[in-house]
């Protein structure tokens, strides 16, 4: 698969403070790529450098294809209507008004509604339609489903998947980990302007410090010192709870111990760490 975007050693400062520092990554064609990070981590700056909105001091950015950018709300004059904005952007992009696209985002019934009177979700739908008018090859989505109801969210996810099937490359910034997990092929987490993680959602959930929880009910009680590969968390209603990074090692240890002490498992529950927990660990650097 060829590369749609290549970012190499990108550095950007504001007033002498480096917001992003020597970050490098690639986005493959047809990929849905997520850029994550806490507020101020540098993800919007990174996106805006790639989009050409902002300049940068060091590094190179190579983009292969036409860009379409969906901005957050508050990005249009207050009293412009949905239809007028759509028409204006179509005219400047020298494309015919694609009313099917307009209708696909539920904008037909909003066509005479002024921007200031639209809900956040309606504004997002309008901005997404504007991002797609020029039949872009690479589409940037900034928190695309924020403010949308469940129906809108599901419909947009379907649309995003449809864009990928058409071979489009999508780059999204999002705070919704469930969305990232279900949609994205690759994730980058930025922390203080540098890349703290790069990989797939599966790699993220199976790595790092987050510990999965094991809840165990045994015939005979267990003691704290029975656990080597896991951390004892406490006991409640007959269940002992431990946390472990390597859940396989911890389970093996437990089962061997139970076998050796001729104990018996009455119940066993395993709760794997979620993408959100992993993200929080990396973004806030909680080390145990």
């Amino acid at each position, binding site marked *: 698969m060829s590369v749609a975007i290549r970012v190499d050693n990108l550095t950007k400062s504001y007033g002498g403070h480096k917001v992003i520092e020597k970050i490098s990554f690639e986005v493959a064609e047809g990929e849905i790529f997520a850029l994550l990070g806490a507020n101020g981590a540098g993800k919007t700056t990174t996106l805006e450098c790639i989009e050409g909105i902002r300049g940068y001091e060091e590094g190179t950015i190579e983009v292969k294809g036409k860009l379409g950018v969906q901005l957050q709300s508050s990005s249009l004059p*207050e009293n412009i209507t949905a239809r007028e904005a759509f*028409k*204006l952007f179509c*005219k400047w992009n*020298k494309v015919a008004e694609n009313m099917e696209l307009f209708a696909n985002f539920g904008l037909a019934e909003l066509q005479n509604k002024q921007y200031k009177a639209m809900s956040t979700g309606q504004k997002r739908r309008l901005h997404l339609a*504007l991002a797609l008018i020029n039949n872009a090859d690479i589409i940037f989505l900034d928190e695309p489903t924020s403010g949308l109801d469940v129906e809108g969210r599901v419909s947009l996810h379907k649309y995003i998947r449809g864009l990928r099937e058409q071979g489009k490359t999508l780059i999204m910034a999002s705070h919704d980990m469930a969305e990232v997990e279900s949609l994205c092929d690759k994730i980058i987490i930025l922390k203080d302007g540098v890349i703290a993680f790069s990989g797939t959602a599966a790699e993220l959930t199976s790595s790092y410090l987050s510990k999965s929880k094991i809840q165990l009910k045994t015939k005979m009680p267990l003691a704290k010192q029975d656990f080597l590969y896991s951390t004892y968390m406490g006991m409640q209603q007959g269940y002992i709870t431990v946390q472990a990074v390597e859940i396989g090692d911890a389970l093996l240890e437990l089962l061997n111990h139970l076998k050796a002490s001729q104990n018996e498992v009455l119940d066993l529950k395993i709760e794997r760490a979620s993408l959100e927990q992993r993200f929080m660990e990396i973004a806030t650097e909680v080390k145990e």
Partner: protein
Amino acid sequence: MDAFLYGAMLQWKLDLRNKVILLTYYVVPLVFFGFMGAIFSSINPEAKNSLIQSMTIFGVTMGAFLGTPPPLIELYGSDIMKAYKVGGIPLWTAAVNNFISAFFHLFIMSFIIFLLAPLAFGAKVPENISVYFFALTVFIIVSLSVGTALGLLIKSISKLTIFSQIIFLPSLMLSGIMFPTSLLPSVLEKAGMIFPATWGLKTMLSSELRLNLFLPLLMIFLLSASINIYKISRAGIE
């Protein structure tokens, strides 16, 4: 060209929907005209000779200095600029469309005063109507160029309010539209010469095209247009 014309027409429509713009381009100038026209023409019959010009100068100055800059601050100081940039809309179009729209609004307001003043207050119609409208056109362009510079130079609405008033109020007091400049101390009379309103009044009262009266307007225009071109060329660069 099609996109540019649509953008200009759209800005005209957006301005008509904007209550603040309507107030500064039409309502306040025309109410002021109605109120002051009645007072001026009753206490000093000679005021009728310059009523059209003075009321027009007030309206245009108000519209250009108080009405034109805020949309520019809203646009160039917000994410709208990003939306335009990524949407393939050149950033200069925002300032140019705002200028064109304001020009037509202020011209219409001026034309209403031109039509109503003789009927309502017996105001004297300009001797040479073509010179009057040429001078009016030049004055609106120069005033809008200054207003555009204010909108591009100042980053916040609160600061703009202060700076606009600093230019707007002396324009009224020192230009001769409220009372003859000969009544002013010579320092203030000279200070009044830096404002477009002073030269706008002189050119609009004149029955012939006199280059020496238009020259100061041309200089003010060149200065403000240079600022505008520089600021627009720098817009969006970080």
